[in-house]
């Protein structure tokens, strides 16, 4: 049984091509995974810069640095880039690298489509970011782009925004198809579905969510395109349409989208906690069922983003109850992670720090989510900084921290070098402190009455905003430390062993570090 292809059988093969063509034409899941990860990191820094522009303006009451119109472009593009350019591609990159290794497959099922899925993204985001430099300015209607602000009242660049969304959506759909085909068809013999690692399970379910809802987003932006250019009135009441239709279609995509952004994180955390507690994941079956329940429920809660829209009472009640229900499987997962820790034998290397912080901080985000689910209370929270606090807790100290944890966790397998543990811990603590100082006060600014998406604010919000800005800058600048750590670890460092971590389990830890360009040419047997 060979985990590594023998290097000398034939002459053509095996190392990667040289030069830029290696990256343009590669069909190798490891190369493509690396490209997704570097791309997502660049997008993260770009989106982060926009966040710092926002926070600089909001440091004090008054308008100091930017015009309100440009501020709206910053908030809009910060959201679009982080959601579609940073978080999603990072998870796809991790899937590309790890899913074939975890199931004992030599590559993804559709390697050429894999290449296309990646290369669409730099084009899509160049187009999107270029709109900021156009005369009309870039998109300024929020990442949720409600009509008619995004149709009748949109800047000319909106058409490029629509095309960029279509492109990124196509990339996601193709990537999802690839993941499902790979997981369902290419698992090593003996690896039944209920023996798959959790990251594979969570990505399988995420891929179904993507296929279900990315076309809905495409529908929403196409209806926008038609309203703007072809005289239709999907979202225009004067032509018989309805602006609220936009919100229903958008959020039917939008809610599963946020679960798309967290389910892979759940998988990562399950791996890291069990490895560093040196104990099997508690409740594997429940974790699978809970993930599936969350995915199913994610389709029937969308209008909790629309509680103030004037829905009929029956609808409002239904969405409130269904939304409250999602807390149950999510709670089950948290309890199972803590039970995995319980009576383990834990060490606290950097990946474990990020995973533990995830459980702590994502749960706080979950609490504010439960509060938001209470529809009458939401009348006071909706479109305020309370919501901003909630989603940044689940997305930054949730999804993003799981990505950081995953990178530290798997980097030695990718590069063959251990990252600098001291610097990794420093990156963790700066990020942890930064994120909490930035986002915890936002609960209070929201409760005090501060709306979202405003460049200037009344005096009672000043202190909270000042703290948030300080935290944001600490967090933002410490990501440059992360960049340094990554660059170092790709070039030199202590050599990593095959197992890397003492408690590691799974096929991915049986290949050498760094993983050879081709692995599992022969499928391993799984007991």
């Amino acid at each position: 049984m060979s985990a590594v292809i023998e290097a000398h059988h034939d002459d053509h093969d095996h190392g990667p091509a040289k030069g830029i063509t290696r990256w343009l034409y590669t069909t190798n899941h490891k190369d493509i995974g690396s490209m997704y990860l570097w791309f997502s990191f660049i997008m993260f820094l770009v989106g982060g810069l926009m966040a710092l522009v926002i926070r600089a303006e909001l440091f004090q009451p008054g308008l100091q640095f930017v015009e309100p119109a440009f501020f709206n472009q910053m908030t809009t593009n910060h959201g679009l880039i982080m959601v579609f350019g940073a978080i999603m591609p990072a998870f796809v990159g991790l899937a590309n690298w790890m899913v074939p290794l975890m199931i004992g497959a030599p590559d993804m099922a559709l390697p050429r489509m894999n290449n296309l899925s990646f290369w669409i993204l730099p084009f899509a985001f160049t187009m999107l970011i270029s709109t900021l430099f156009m005369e009309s300015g870039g998109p300024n209607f929020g990442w949720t782009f409600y009509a008619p602000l995004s149709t009748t009242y949109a800047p000319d660049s909106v058409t490029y925004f629509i095309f960029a969304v279509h492109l990124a959506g196509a990339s996601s759909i193709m990537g999802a198809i690839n993941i499902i085909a790979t997981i369902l068809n290419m698992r090593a013999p003996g690896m039944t579905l209920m023996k798959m690692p959790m990251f594979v399970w969570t990505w399988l379910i995420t891929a179904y969510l993507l296929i279900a809802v990315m076309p809905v987003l495409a529908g929403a932006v196409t209806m926008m395109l038609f309203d703007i250019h072809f005289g239709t009135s999907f979202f225009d009441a004067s032509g018989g349409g309805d602006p609220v239709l936009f919100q229903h279609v958008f959020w039917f995509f939008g809610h599963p989208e946020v679960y798309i952004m967290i389910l892979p994180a759940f998988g990562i955390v399950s791996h890291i906690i069990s490895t560093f507690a040196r104990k099997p994941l508690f409740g594997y079956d429940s974790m699978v069922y809970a993930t599936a329940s969350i995915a199913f429920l994610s389709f029937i809660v969308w209008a909790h983003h629309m509680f103030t829209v004037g829905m009929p009472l029956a609808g409002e009640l239904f969405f409130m109850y269904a939304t409250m229900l999602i807390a149950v499987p999510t709670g089950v997962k948290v309890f199972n992670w803590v039970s995995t820790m319980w009576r383990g034998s834990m060490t606290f290397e950097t990946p474990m720090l990020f995973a533990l912080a995830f459980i702590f901080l994502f749960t706080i985000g979950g609490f504010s989510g439960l509060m938001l689910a209470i529809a009458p209370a939401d009348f006071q929270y909706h479109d305020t900084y309370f919501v901003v606090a909630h989603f940044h807790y689940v997305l930054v100290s949730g999804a993003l921290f799981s990505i950081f944890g995953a990178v530290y966790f798997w980097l030695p397998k990718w590069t063959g070098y251990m990252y600098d543990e001291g610097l990794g811990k420093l990156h963790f603590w700066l990020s942890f402190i930064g994120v909490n100082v930035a986002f915890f006060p936002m609960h209070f600014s929201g409760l005090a009455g501060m709306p979202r998406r405003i460049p200037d604010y009344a005096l009672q919000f000043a202190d909270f905003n000042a703290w948030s800005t300080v935290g944001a800058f600490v967090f933002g600048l410490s990501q440059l430390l992360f960049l340094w750590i990554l660059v170092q670890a790709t070039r030199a460092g202590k050599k990593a062993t095959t197992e890397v971590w003492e408690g590691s389990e799974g096929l991915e830890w049986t290949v050498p570090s760094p993983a050879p360009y081709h692995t599992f040419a022969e499928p391993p047997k799984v007991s």
Partner: protein
Amino acid sequence: MMSKISSLARAVLASAFALAGAAAVAAEYNMPVGVTDVSREIQELHMTIFWICVAIGVLVFGAMLVSMILHRKAAGAEPATFHESTKLELLWTIIPIVILVVMAYPATDVLVKIYDTGGEDMVVEVRGYQWKWQYKYLDEELNEQVSFFSNLSTPRQQILGESQKGENYLLEVDNELVIPTDTKVRFLLTSNDVIHSWWVPDFGLKRDAIPGFINEAWVNVKEPGVYRGQCTELCGKDHGFMPVVVRAVPKAEFEQWYAAQLDPSAAAALAMAN
């Protein structure tokens, strides 16, 4: 060992309660109780779900903390091998469901109350514009009687930092909406252009103003005063600069004010005669 756990647990619980208690007491960190029955009931729902979350948090984070201290390799802990328990899974599925069902009852009650817009004493149309509000007082046939715009009145110099910011910076307008207290006021909300949203935190009232559609809401303000809110739906460049200011006055004072709006000269003459 046992005393270590219990003193640790006590420390965790004590600090959690201290923190949460401080938050509850410090009103400036919390949602306002407001001046209507609805706003007060909303705040109570908010505090209830908050305390439930605090309780769950103390349990979960407490367990994590204890585990991180006791179950460390450095402390010599050996890893156990248990990895499932159907009983536990059932327990921590069913108990949360029960908690949620218990929470759903009061939440439903308040929502039903919020939706009961009938039996109103007066009707006001609220129309959102880029970037100001228009208020129209309507009679029983919903014909417009009094109508005016309400614009941000904070001077630009304050925004640009050229002069000192006033106390109600960004929350002041030229013409306030005036309504009587102890009166069920029904609002009809719409927009002239994009979606806006009308929010007064002290009323517990937020409703989107959607072009081409009419939304309903109602309020019954118990205490006279000036209540300030903002637009809460991104509506373009001056979304942050179109505040909502409502002055709630006793009924008699409202009647006088309203009469003056209807017929300024007659009201002035009456005032002079008195």
